């Protein structure tokens, strides 16, 4: 589903965010992307969602190489990916229903179908009945779940999430992660960037560890093999 081949990314300001990164994620797999802030997690997600293009190397998502995809094909490409953000990026002036429906509206889905699917998505995240509320009327955890409903409403084969539990307390965070696992269980590929080791350990899924823009093999010591409670402190030593 996702393949990075010797991918480097240098931003216009000269900072090299990723250096020669290679990895692959199979269809239906759930993978955690971990590492300290600034390790390159967000850059990996941006490259997957085609918010950025690689400077060197090739990123292949769902069979498409993002480096050469024409601009007019980007919208269709993005419709294959559900994206969840830490700040959930909801439209504050639109009710929950409109926020969740946006990917379907954009894709030209029929109104009746939109209604059905939005309700189904809200049901999956446990928010059925809150369609008419504005995002500000919801709790932070609920807002995050609206963001997740929006990411899954069009049933994309791939979901990527950038620190989706960053603003949530541990119980809520775990709940959200189990939600992701349920999607993965039904065949959706899920890539979650997080620095929450408890969650990574709890779900026992594959982990890709980034440090300073490079992949750390398990056992490097500096990364998080899952046993080190405070990997970033270890890395700093």
């Amino acid at each position: 589903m996702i393949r990075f081949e010797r991918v480097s990314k240098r931003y216009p300001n000269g900072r090299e965010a990723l250096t020669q990164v290679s990895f692959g994620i199979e269809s239906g797999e759930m993978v955690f992307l971990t590492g300290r802030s600034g390790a390159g997690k967000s850059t990996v997600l941006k490259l997957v969602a085609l918010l950025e293009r690689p400077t060197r190397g090739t990123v292949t998502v769902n069979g498409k190489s993002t480096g050469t995809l024409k601009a007019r094909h980007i919208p269709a490409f993005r419709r294959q990916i559900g994206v969840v953000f830490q700040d959930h990026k909801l439209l504050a002036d639109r009710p929950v229903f409109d926020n969740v429906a946006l990917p379907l509206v954009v894709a030209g889905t029929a109104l009746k179908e939109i209604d059905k699917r939005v309700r189904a998505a809200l049901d999956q995240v446990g928010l059925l009945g809150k369609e008419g509320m504005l995002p500000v009327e919801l709790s932070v955890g609920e807002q995050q779940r609206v963001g997740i409903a929006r990411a899954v409403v069009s049933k994309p084969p791939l979901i990527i999430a950038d620190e989706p539990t960053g603003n949530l307390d541990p119980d809520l965070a775990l709940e959200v992660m189990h939600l992701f696992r349920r999607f993965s269980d039904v065949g959706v590929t899920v890539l979650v960037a997080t620095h929450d080791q408890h969650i990574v350990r709890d779900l026992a899924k594959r982990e890709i560890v980034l440090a300073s823009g490079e992949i750390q093999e398990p056992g490097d010591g500096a990364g998080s093999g899952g046993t080190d409670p405070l990997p970033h402190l270890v890395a700093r030593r």
Partner: protein
Amino acid sequence: MRPSIFGTRHAQALLGSLGRLKRNPLATLLTLLVIGLALALPAALGLFVTNAQTATGGFSNAVDMSVYLKSGVTLAKAQQLAAAARQRPGVAQVTVIPAEQGLAEFRRYSGFGAALDALQSNPLPNVLHVVPSRGAGSSADLDSLRSYFAAWPEVDVVQLDTEWVLRFNAIIAVLRQLVLIAAALLGAGVLAVVGNTIRLEILNRRAEIEVTKLVGGSNAFVRRPFLYTGLLYGLGGAALAAAILEAAVLVLDPSVTTLAQLYGSRYTLQGPSGQVLGVLFGGGMALGWLGAWISAHRHLRSIEPRA
């Protein structure tokens, strides 16, 4: 995409734009006012020219020619010539004014009665009074008619006052060009106003545009509501301009009627014709749409989602 979905998406974009305009009534009203005034100005000028032309339309028919025959030409011959002249296209009416009648009128109106009595014989020739037909009042037509009569051997002088017709037509031509220039300049103004308004709205809705693009919204999808907003601005501005014109006509009509009566005319001011309204609304909507398109094309490209 199925046509029904296509229609639904356009309807959604249109309704969304309407709703947004309604949410900021004051800002919308001010923008509409600027567009309305910019559209009303050239339209009013055009209306003035049309009215001036219609009001004076009678004048060119009032243009008449006096064809003075040579003094030896008899009245019978004059009648014969008049009959021939009536056959010519562009001639509405030919009246023979016999020399005697001419002298009698001159005596009556000039006040030279006593002096005329001193004359041995009537010095006046027979005259043909020629009225050109409606639609043959242009200066070229009149010149051609004049040459036609001047070529007759029996004709001494053809007197025709075309100068003022030429001047009047020249004034109308200048005004017509002014209308075009004003329309072009103010049309550019409408483009700028709509473009700038749309630019501000795009900046205001930056977050929404980013999210929409993030979930796979194409540029066309993101642009559509802004194009409808521009179209609505154009439509509203044109409606306002039409209202301004109608109101101005309503206010001016009594005074114009009075003025016309003083000139012995029954002329009443004419409001904008269906054609003028069509141009106004069509032009307004086209300008609004175009202004929005230019602005959206320029500014939407730069907004790409950031994670």
